[in-house]
């Protein structure tokens, strides 16, 4: 249907107030339940993702506290071994699959379209679908925990423990399908982000001018696209072994248990960078703003991101040093594991140089950056240590490893994330978070974290194994464990204060205005929170720090329609405008498709035939999704 039903309205035909009104009408999400279920606005979905992930963070934190309570003294009888197994599995799976990856992607969903000057993410309906799937997977895992049927085989679900012989009941099946839910959703978001960054950048935003955070999300998205199929293949083969009697991991019939470890860590190691690279992007966004100068070595930083992304695929075997692989292979993976310190070092020194050469203003986001630098460097150093086979053989499966990865994951990703939330909260909500409370949060979290996790290095060197629900008094681990557990209360108080500040600032935070930090990137060129169309006119970019080049005026383009959802498609490298493309309206179909997918995946745990009959409603909802609706967005 190429004939428009009503007269098209161009943005040049309206005055500025009329245009803003018309655009917010066109792009609006109606209030109420129907609006909530049908929205495809990347800001609303991104916000939802962040809030959901933070709730999972809090829940996972409660599990961590339970474990610390249990380990606070020797022979503690608070939690029995079965529940303890469920708790540490749930903690790890929840933090990796329901918190860390989704929250990083969520920040990308919200920020990338704003930072590159477009009106919505590419494939917004897929974005809505991905959120509902993520929510369904998270609910499934936590409801199974409430029913005492949560996975109990560790977050990496090694066979044969998770296989049909030893993993009785449905616990491992729930783990495997939780993977399917979260990975489908993560993969969908990765595809959206790649296409958004490739094709929807504001005119003039050449490759050199893409904000470093956006580069980080781009590299991360490619890591997701190349690594996550491995865990989907792995969890699918696992569930097939369990449900229909295949033998992928059964040595008696030609299968192999190490195959699982290869598949899992081929995903699992890039996973670390999927979490860490967005965090480095956040650091690269925060530092220039608070030291009032562009990043030193911007190109080097971007190349380091890409190098880390490539190297990430050559490291996985260092998780398997004690399984008895050929020595030559182990040496290769030691070298590649150590070499990742090079791009990481390049990034650290670029940030230090930027801090050194600038005039740092010590606001809360920058304090989190400092906390990150200290903590992450310690975690990086122990990383270089465990890359060595003899050392790793000694500390494998001990608390040393637990200390190491909490230093790189909390220090390397959660601290930057908290800084980023303080930094972008005013953009999300229009209000600033509290500077005073924020300083308390940084201090409590930094001190609490180091006192909780540093002793674990020593405990690990003393031989305390991971995943034990208790230990005897004679081992001499009591005092360090008690220190760690007591400090965990400080750490938890820091997080509690952080959540309190978030809630308090929603209502009572100081009004922020467009650009409270006087930052340089495009998300600060629009209102806080941004209008439903993001930008009334698409900005035109002439440099890497657009808002610093001309703080008074912004150059824009006009000629887009105001009566249909229209955004600008630009060329891949030069970002020359090539087409006006429409963006879908709000629709219920992604929600229905997600329900159909959920029914199919959960039912398949109980009968493989669900994959057959479950495909029928799924196909029906997908056809409803794609069938043209005859709206102005359909015109060509």
């Amino acid at each position: 249907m190429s004939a428009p039903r009503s007269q098209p309205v161009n943005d040049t035909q309206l005055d500025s107030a009329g245009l803003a009104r018309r655009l917010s009408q066109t792009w609006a999400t109606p209030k109420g339940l129907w609006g909530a279920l049908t929205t495809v606005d990347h800001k609303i979905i991104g916000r939802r993702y962040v809030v959901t992930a933070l709730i999972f963070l809090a829940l996972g934190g409660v599990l961590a506290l339970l474990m610390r309570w249990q380990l606070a003294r020797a022979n503690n009888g608070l939690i029995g071994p079965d529940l303890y197994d469920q708790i540490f599995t749930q903690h790890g799976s929840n933090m990796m699959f329901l918190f860390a990856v989704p929250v990083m992607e969520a920040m990308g969903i919200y920020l990338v379209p704003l930072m590159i000057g477009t009106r919505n993410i590419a494939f917004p309906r897929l974005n809505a679908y991905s959120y509902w799937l993520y929510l369904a997977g998270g609910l499934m895992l936590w409801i199974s925990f409430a029913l005492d049927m949560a996975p109990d085989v560790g977050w990496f679900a090694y066979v044969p423990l998770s296989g049909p012989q030893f993993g009785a009941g449905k616990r491992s099946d729930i783990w495997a399908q939780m993977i399917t839910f979260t990975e489908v959703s993560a993969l969908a978001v990765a595809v959206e982000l790649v296409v958004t960054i490739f094709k929807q950048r504001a005119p003039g935003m050449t490759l050199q001018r893409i904000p470093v955070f956006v580069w980080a999300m781009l590299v991360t998205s490619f890591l997701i696209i190349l690594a996550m199929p491995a865990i989907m293949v792995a969890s699918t083969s696992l569930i097939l072994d369990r449900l229909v009697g295949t033998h992928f991991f059964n040595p008696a019939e030609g299968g192999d248990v190490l195959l699982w470890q290869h598949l899992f860590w081929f995903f699992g190691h890039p996973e670390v960078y999927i979490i860490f690279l967005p965090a480095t992007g956040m650091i690269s966004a925060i530092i220039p703003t608070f030291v009032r100068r562009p990043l030193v070595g911007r190109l080097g930083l971007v190349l380091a991101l890409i190098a880390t992304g490539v190297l990430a695929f050559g490291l996985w075997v260092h998780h398997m040093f004690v399984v008895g692989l050929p020595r030559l292979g182990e040496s290769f993976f030691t070298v590649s594991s150590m070499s990742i310190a090079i791009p990481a070092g390049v990034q650290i020194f670029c940030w230090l140089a930027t801090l050194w050469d600038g005039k740092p203003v010590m606001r809360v986001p920058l304090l989190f950056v400092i906390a990150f630098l200290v903590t992450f460097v310690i975690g990086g150093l122990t990383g270089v240590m465990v890359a060595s086979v003899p050392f790793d053989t000694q500390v494998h499966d001990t608390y040393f490893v637990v200390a190491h990865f909490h230093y790189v994951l909390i220090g390397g990703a959660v601290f930057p994330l908290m800084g980023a939330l303080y930094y972008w909260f005013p953009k999300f909500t229009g209000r600033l978070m509290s500077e005073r409370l924020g300083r308390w949060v940084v201090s409590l979290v930094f001190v609490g974290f180091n006192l909780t996790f540093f002793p674990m290095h020593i405990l690990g060197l003393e031989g305390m194994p991971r995943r034990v629900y208790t230990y005897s008094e004679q081992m001499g681990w009591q005092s360090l464990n008690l220190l760690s557990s007591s400090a965990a209360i400080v750490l938890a108080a820091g997080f509690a204060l952080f959540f309190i500040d978030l809630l308090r600032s929603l209502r009572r935070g100081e009004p922020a205005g467009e650009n409270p930090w006087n930052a340089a990137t495009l998300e600060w060129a629009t209102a806080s929170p941004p209008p439903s169309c993001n930008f009334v006119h698409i900005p035109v970019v002439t440099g890497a720090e657009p808002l610093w080049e001309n703080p008074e005026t912004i150059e824009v383009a006009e000629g887009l329609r105001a009566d249909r959802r229209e955004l600008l498609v630009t060329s891949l490298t030069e970002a020359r405008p090539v087409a006006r493309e429409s963006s879908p309206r709000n629709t219920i179909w992604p929600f229905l498709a997600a329900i159909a997918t959920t029914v199919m995946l959960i039912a398949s745990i109980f009968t493989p035939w669900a994959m057959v009959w479950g495909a029928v409603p799924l196909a029906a909802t997908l056809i409803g999704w794609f069938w043209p609706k005859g709206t102005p967005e359909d015109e060509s």
Partner: protein
Amino acid sequence: MKERVVMQLDALPMHGRGSDSPTMWGTLAFMLLEGSAFALCIGIYLYLLVLAPQWPIGALPPRWPAGTVMTVLLLASLVPNYLVGRWSRENDLARVRLGMVIMSVLGIAPLIVRVFEFRSLNVWWDTNAYGSILWLLLGLHSMHIATDVADTLVLGVMMFTRHGSNSRRMGDVEDNVLYWNFVVLTWLPIYFCIYWIPRL
């Protein structure tokens, strides 16, 4: 912040085709993603093969006729597929309609041959790990054929409705053509693994 207009966009086309189309880039990204999954499954096949004292494990190699018919059929379908792509770029609705009917038939036919293929593997999925990976490879590829056939059928029907004359639909057809090429090309290494490696 004050705005200064420096660029006019109203002369641009109202949607992008070819490399200007976000959907095409999305299709490419999904091909990369699913290609990784295929590569990993082939990796599993080779991994199990290296471990096994003999290959195939406890079975005769698959009987080759069905798989070879499949290969010929899929390769032959590339010709009309290419033509449909060209017609859609030329916005030739009548020919695209014809092409979509042909491609629907050429999509369903391999699914029928696939049934015979499963039956000529000489092994069940639960016989041993060799059988498991054969069924996984074939199953994964069948899912891709089925998905594309469903897409082709729906799009084919759409081309006969009032929505067909929209140039947007021609873009959809182009993406469908692109994806079918992917489905055919991924079959070749799988065909080699299943039918030829056990005979090498």
